[in-house]
């Protein structure tokens, strides 16, 4: 009797905790959403914005009718999908071998790679390398030079080490080669880490701004964040003859931009959820 009361209480506490935390976490997005749905001339940054002060879709109308926005979406989708693919291939390709303690030269290779996480040569030399590879003004420049994050790779290595060695050994005894082990055993069993690292890479690409400014000049290749940023007009640029648009205001566009870049992610995320369950199978394979 005592136990069930205690567990019921703790369950209640748990749900309450998450409802409260959820509200707190939701608030920034809510503020942004409500602001973006308000009349741009009347909306105020100085208010809590729990509801749109004067409901208006004019900001969204303004932003969503700019053809340039869709150029941005197109390019960002390409960079996100293919960039994540490239990143995952390279990261898995490095992580799996390095997760094997028996690999000759493991420590050396590990240090080699790890070193790059701490020390880098800076923007100018990197730009020059990209330029010499003829990647300037190509979407490749947004997918390849930043393909592998050592941080992510280290996490992946940790996860691979957690895969029971008996599985791999028994497969090897049956004649499986390293490629088979990787592709048919390890990768399918690491659903959770694949989804996690994949998500981290994808979000990183989606939100990327600086490389899109530095490496791309061609307007047709602009990515989403650069496009959205360009839509903000700061009035401190005084002396703009004639640009007296009433369509929106920089603040409102900023808010709408946040909503527009988050919504696609929210739409895609639920599909990744199932991979977290997939990995659960691993536990039951053990022993």
């Amino acid at each position, binding site marked *: 009797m005592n136990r069930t009361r205690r567990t019921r209480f703790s*369950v209640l506490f*748990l*749900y309450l905790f*998450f409802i409260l*935390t959820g509200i707190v*976490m939701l*608030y*920034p*997005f809510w503020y*942004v959403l409500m602001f973006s749905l308000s009349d741009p001339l009347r909306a105020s940054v100085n208010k*809590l914005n729990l509801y749109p002060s004067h409901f208006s879709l004019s900001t969204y109308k303004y932003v969503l009718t700019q053809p340039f926005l869709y150029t941005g979406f197109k390019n960002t989708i390409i960079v996100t999908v293919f960039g994540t693919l490239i990143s995952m291939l*390279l990261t898995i*390709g*490095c992580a*799996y*071998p390095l997760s*094997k303690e028996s690999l*000759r030269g493991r420590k050396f*290779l590990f240090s*080699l*790679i*790890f070193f*790059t996480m*701490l*020390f*880098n040569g*800076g923007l*100018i*030399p*990197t730009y*020059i*390398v990209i330029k010499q*590879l003829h990647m300037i003004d190509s979407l490749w420049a947004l997918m*390849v030079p930043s*393909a592998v994050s050592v941080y992510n790779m280290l*996490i992946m290595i*940790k*996860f691979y080490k*957690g895969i029971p060695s008996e599985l791999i050994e028994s497969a090897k005894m049956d004649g499986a080669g*390293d*490629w088979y082990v990787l592709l048919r055993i390890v990768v399918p069993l690491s659903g*959770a*880490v694949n989804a*996690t690292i994949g*998500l*981290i890479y994808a979000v990183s690409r989606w*939100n990327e701004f600086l490389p899109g400014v530095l490496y791309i000049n061609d307007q047709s290749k602009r990515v989403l964040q650069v496009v959205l940023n360009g839509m903000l007009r700061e009035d401190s640029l005084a002396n703009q003859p004639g640009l007296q648009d009433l369509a929106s205001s920089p603040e409102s566009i*900023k808010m709408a931009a*946040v909503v527009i*870049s*988050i919504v696609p*992610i929210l739409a895609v995320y*639920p599909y990744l*959820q199932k991979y977290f369950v997939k*990995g659960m199978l*691993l*536990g*039951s394979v*053990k*022993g």
Partner: protein
Amino acid sequence: METVQTYKREEPATKRLSRLHPIYKDRHLYLMLLPGLLFFIVFKYVPLYGIVIAFQDYDIFRGIRESEWVGWDIFKEVFAYSDFWVILGNTLQISVYKILFGFPAPIVVALLLNELGNRYFKKYVQTILYLPHFISWVVISGIVLTIMSPTNGVLSIVYEWFGMEPKNLLADPTAFRIILVASDIWKDLGWGTIIYLAALTQVDPSLYEAATVDGAGKWKQTWHITLPGIRNVIVLLLILRIGLLMNAGFEQILVMQNSAVLEVSEILDTFVFKFGLQQGNYSFATAVGLFNSAIALILILGAQWISKKFGEEGLM
């Protein structure tokens, strides 16, 4: 005489070679590594020469080859700056607070999330938790300013409740630091749980069953099964986070700092940005970057060594 007969086939040539050359045995693994290594060489090692800018009076037009070599002068200039030690202190202080409070938070929340039974609730809560991560600091700092507003923010209501005069807490050095840490947790707590949740899936569920049979309660189970199960990930992330000590939160602090709190909020990165990059002084920025990297290396190696002493795997 009986020899232990192990099942032995005739050794093909490749097998013989494998036994002699460990590299040949693992040739497929090396092949897998190859594209990645190429990536690192081309995009990380080749540009590494840029580090010398820290030792030069770098002029864009003379380029690296012809810019004047000044040795440690740039570093001396950085260290000689009147507020340098205050700035360094701020950087460390803010970073340590963020680690102290911000590192355990996602772990705790991930553990709690794991306890949620209802799948739908869990899914929605997770998605909501991630949301602040996607909002830029420029926007979030604006929201913080609004909430903390002494005139019409949430805070002013709280003050009035207690019958006190609302203060502008963001202008108060101590309060400002707390707000920095709190808003940082606010923003990245949810996102930080992702990795831990993934780690939790690797814990063998049968262990929990066995523990329940033995009569262990939730707390005991968490302490003896869950935490040890994700310990390797926690240690890895902790070491890396310690390595990032010199990163106290550039973007956040740049948009949130104000004149009244500069003495506690100026960090290395904002300092370099305002006094180095914005003045076009690449040498300055590169020098501080190099300094940060060196410290990071020392910290990580130190943390790694300590973790080994505790019997952990550490980074590798």
